[in-house]
């Protein structure tokens, strides 16, 4: 990707405009990030559509992938503990599949990792918290504020505890987005640095004997990144469920 400096580990995260798009004066330029988001969405949609179209009793490969994804998200929602959490199943499922495929497709060389952009993960986290707030107010009205008032606490302690609860609530989108973003960013930088070590050692005369060491490290790290990619998508989904559970039952 980077002709001018192939060793720069940060260059892989550069946003490059593909073609300019300014409808109604809004800068909606189509970038490589947008391209990969479209690729992820199309991949997810086609896996689910093609996987569910045969409707075989004994599933084929694609169908069992689709069914496993469904069962997994269903178990995740069940684990977060709300009985009527299945109402949010389409949202959680879409979110999980999007994050998972962004993470996994980003691991393929020469692709772009959409989830390594804080703008993307931040938008996803704000979407989750926005749904929590809107749903909470729609179904509980002002009772939703009980989320910030711990039960069974003397009134004298309220001025101390309510700000803590509010900050704790506001820190959720931050930690949700930063966790995913930081994991993907750090992992991809580490991989790139290891790859850079291999290249520079190979060009360093006698020290080329050492080149297999960072190469082995890069192989191990790739497997580790695969684990992190799946795990972070899972964590994102289960925390979304936990937060949505708060919207359904605000009073602890």
């Amino acid at each position, binding site marked *: 990707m980077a002709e001018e400096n192939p060793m720069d580990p940060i260059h892989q995260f550069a946003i490059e405009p593909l073609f300019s798009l300014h409808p109604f004066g809004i800068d909606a330029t189509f970038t490589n990030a947008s391209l990969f988001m479209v690729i992820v969405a199309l991949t997810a949609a086609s896996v689910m559509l093609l996987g569910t179209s045969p409707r075989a009793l004994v599933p084929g490969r694609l169908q069992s992938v689709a069914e496993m994804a469904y069962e997994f998200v269903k178990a995740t929602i069940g684990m977060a503990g709300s009985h009527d959490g299945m109402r949010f199943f389409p949202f959680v499922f879409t979110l999980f599949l999007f994050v998972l495929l962004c993470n996994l497709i980003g691991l393929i060389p020469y692709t772009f990792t959409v989830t390594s952009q804080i703008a993307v993960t931040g938008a996803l986290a704000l979407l989750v918290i926005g749904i929590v707030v809107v749903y909470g107010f729609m179904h509980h009205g002002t009772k939703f504020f009980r989320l910030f008032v711990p039960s069974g606490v003397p009134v004298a302690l309220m001025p101390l505890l309510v700000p803590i609860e509010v900050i704790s609530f506001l820190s959720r989108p*931050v*930690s949700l987005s930063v966790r995913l973003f930081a994991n993907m960013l750090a992992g991809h930088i580490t991989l790139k640095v290891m790859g850079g070590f291999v290249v520079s050692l190979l060009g360093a005369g006698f020290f080329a004997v050492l080149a297999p060491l960072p190469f082995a490290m890069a192989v191990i790290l790739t497997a580790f990144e695969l684990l*992190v990619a799946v795990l972070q998508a899972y964590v994102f989904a289960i925390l979304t469920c936990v937060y949505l559970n708060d919207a359904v039952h605000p009073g602890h």
Partner: protein
Amino acid sequence: MARRGRQGEDRPGQREWQSRELGSLETDDGALSARLKKLSDALDAKRSAEEASRREGPLPGAAGSMGNVLSLAFRVLSEFVAAVVVGAAIGWGIDRLSGTTPWFLIVFLLFGAAAGFWNVYRIATEKPGGGEG
């Protein structure tokens, strides 16, 4: 019209294929029943093993224990840091608007630290199998 014609062409071939398949199934009936028995035995064994692992493991859907611990560690870290940062940001914002630097920053930094500990405490007391959030 053209499409219907093609369908008509397809059908006899398909029927022939089906009947051939049926014939081969009928000829080795004994082999088939033996294979079915083997498959159902394997299925039973797998099901009981799954049941056992479900009884032992607290998180049926999660990845291995190494991944679990890692993600938990990162969750604790990020929840704590996020709370402190959010508290500091709120304090800084209030100070900027009201010109009371640095008092609100200090107070809300402390609130943020407390909220961070509260987040970590909540993760620590959370039941592994779920339950109330």
